[in-house]
């Protein structure tokens, strides 16, 4: 799981490349820039964690990638390239071709994301019949059903040939999440975007689902974006991680290094407020204050009013700076040894 990704990244071209992405939502109070200048690269076969709190823009970033930003929101600027295709200039028909086949996304809430009126079989077959090109001409339906059963077996649903004709409400929360993963993976996508895949689940089930995604990634050789608020999940299941705050990526780097030596004060804060089972007496240090309103924020470090290390110079646009091999942080003091 924790392969030496950095050596690979230097050689291969990214599968997904996001540059200067800006996504806005007009509201009564003003224009909310939910994603503001995000740059990200995802390499084939890697698992990239996106960590942040609500309002950080982590989900909106990938809703923008997959063209599902809720109206009246819109992608205002930037380029999104996936496997050589410019995703920002796709026709509806091309999107339909791409979504489900090459890029799949799983949602946080499996109960509302699955159609309650269709059986699991119908929902998986629908995707397969629409996208899978390798189904035989003759007996397409039978082949699709066989593939659907196989997918359910792959995600660990017991007695899949029987349960495939059940409706979503007949499954438990963990099983529904698995079904959604089965649907997402049924056409062997190159990229799986998993948006908080385990937030609604209990820890023992969460462990099962995350292990499953990891196993399938290795088996199918796909790339995974794991969007989560849980640094523990990121630490155990990703190769690289990008920390987002108030619509921007504030730090990015290989997971283990980033967690053991965070460079951005926000990342430090996030790590400091996790209660540790290994050290029960270690105090948790809250980050005081709140995420700023994402309206008209310019020319200032977005974290500065909550930051213990702020300087007068923080009241300016802070660029990402390289702080090590494959590591960047959006802080003017990132290279200092802050304690």
């Amino acid at each position, binding site marked *: 799981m924790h392969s030496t990704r950095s050596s690979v990244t230097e050689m291969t071209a990214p599968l997904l490349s996001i540059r200067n992405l800006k996504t806005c*939502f007009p*509201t*009564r*109070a*003003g224009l*909310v820039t*939910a994603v503001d200048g995000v740059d990200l690269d995802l390499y084939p076969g890697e698992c990239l964690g996106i960590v942040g709190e*609500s*309002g950080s823009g982590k*989900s*909106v970033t990938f*809703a923008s990638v*997959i063209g*599902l*930003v*809720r109206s009246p*929101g819109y992608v205002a600027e930037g380029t999104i390239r996936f496997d050589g295709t410019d995703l920002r200039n796709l026709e509806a028909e091309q999107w339909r071709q791409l979504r489900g086949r090459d890029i799949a*996304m799983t*949602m*946080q*809430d499996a109960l*509302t*994301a699955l159609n309650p009126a269709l059986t699991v079989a119908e929902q998986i077959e629908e995707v397969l019949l629409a996208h899978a090109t390798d189904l035989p001409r003759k007996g397409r339906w039978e082949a699709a059903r066989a593939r659907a059963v196989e997918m359910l077996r792959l995600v660990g649903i017991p007695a899949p040939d029987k349960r495939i004709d059940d409706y979503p409400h007949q499954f438990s929360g963990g099983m529904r999440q698995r079904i959604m993963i089965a649907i997402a993976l049924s056409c062997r996508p190159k990229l799986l975007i998993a*948006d908080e895949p385990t937030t609604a689940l209990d820890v023992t089930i969460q462990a099962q689902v995350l292990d499953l995604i990891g196993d399938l990634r290795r088996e199918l050789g796909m790339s995974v974006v794991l969007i989560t608020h849980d640094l523990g999940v990121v630490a155990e299941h990703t190769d690289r991680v990008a920390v987002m705050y108030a619509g921007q990526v504030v730090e990015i780097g290989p997971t283990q290094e980033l967690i053991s030596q965070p460079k951005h004060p926000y990342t430090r804060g996030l790590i400091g407020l996790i209660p540790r089972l290994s050290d029960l007496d270690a105090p948790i240090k809250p980050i005081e204050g709140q995420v700023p*309103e*994402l*309206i008209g924020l310019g020319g200032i470090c977005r974290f500065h009013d909550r930051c213990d290390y702020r300087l007068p110079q923080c009241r300016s646009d802070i660029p990402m700076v390289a702080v090590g091999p494959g590591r960047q942080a959006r802080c003017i003091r990132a290279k200092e040894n802050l304690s």
Partner: protein
Amino acid sequence: MSAAIQAPAAMPERAETPTWQSLRRFSGDGFSVAAAIVVLIFVLLAVLAPWIAPHDPYETDLLRRLQPPAWMEGGEWSYILGCDALGRDILSRIIYGSQVSITIGLAVVLISTAIGTVLGLAAGYMRGWVDIAISRVVDILLGFPYLIFAIALMAMMGPGLQNIILALVYKEWVVPARVVRGEVLAAREMEYVEAARAIGAPRLHIMFREILPNILSPVIVVSTIRMAHVIILEASLSFLGIGVQPPTASWGSMVADGRSFVLDAWWVSTFPGIAILVLVLSINVASQGLRDAFDPKFSD
């Protein structure tokens, strides 16, 4: 599958109650506001009838029997919409008739909403035998066809304004009672209700102070829609001759008056009919607007 991505909510500085927000949303809906204004005009007509009606609605003048509207041959401008079979001015009678429609519509809806809300709250919050008793009565009453039920009651009680109101209330309370009960069943499971119990709030406080304000919007919306329905029922009863008694002007009885010579003097039935149509339509459109304004709960 669609991404549930929404803009982060901006926090307004000014304190604004959820009701106020809904009204602000309503005021932005031009079509519904126009409909509400039409309803308001009818209410004004009813209140100001003695001052704005051009003629006495009861004054008969056999010389003007079935006089056509002003723009037709034989019409005159002081009797714009013409006269009925007894030579009474139709416009004045329509203006006075709005008193009947609006009085009955408002009275029936207010009384039955009050009754229905209390019973629905009791059934939904207390459950058990209270709920079973109230719900069975509701089910039984729903089994009767409304109009026939009202006709039967009117036949027993005899005609008159009060009796019409009573006859309609007898069944009308069922509608708000059902709506309220359903809403209460959902609301009583909310944590704020449990929180009120946890601080030791008495049952009546929880029912009327915690739950009621939160379920008022759907009740108001349903009541407005029902008002249109009640107005039609009153017109139907009056049309059948068991509603408001002559010579009092009621749109329903006016339509009935003209039905024997609808081919020769179409205006006698048509204008009160149009009045019913416009009022009912406006109430419906306005209540749709209200529903839309109240529905997206507090998400702005």
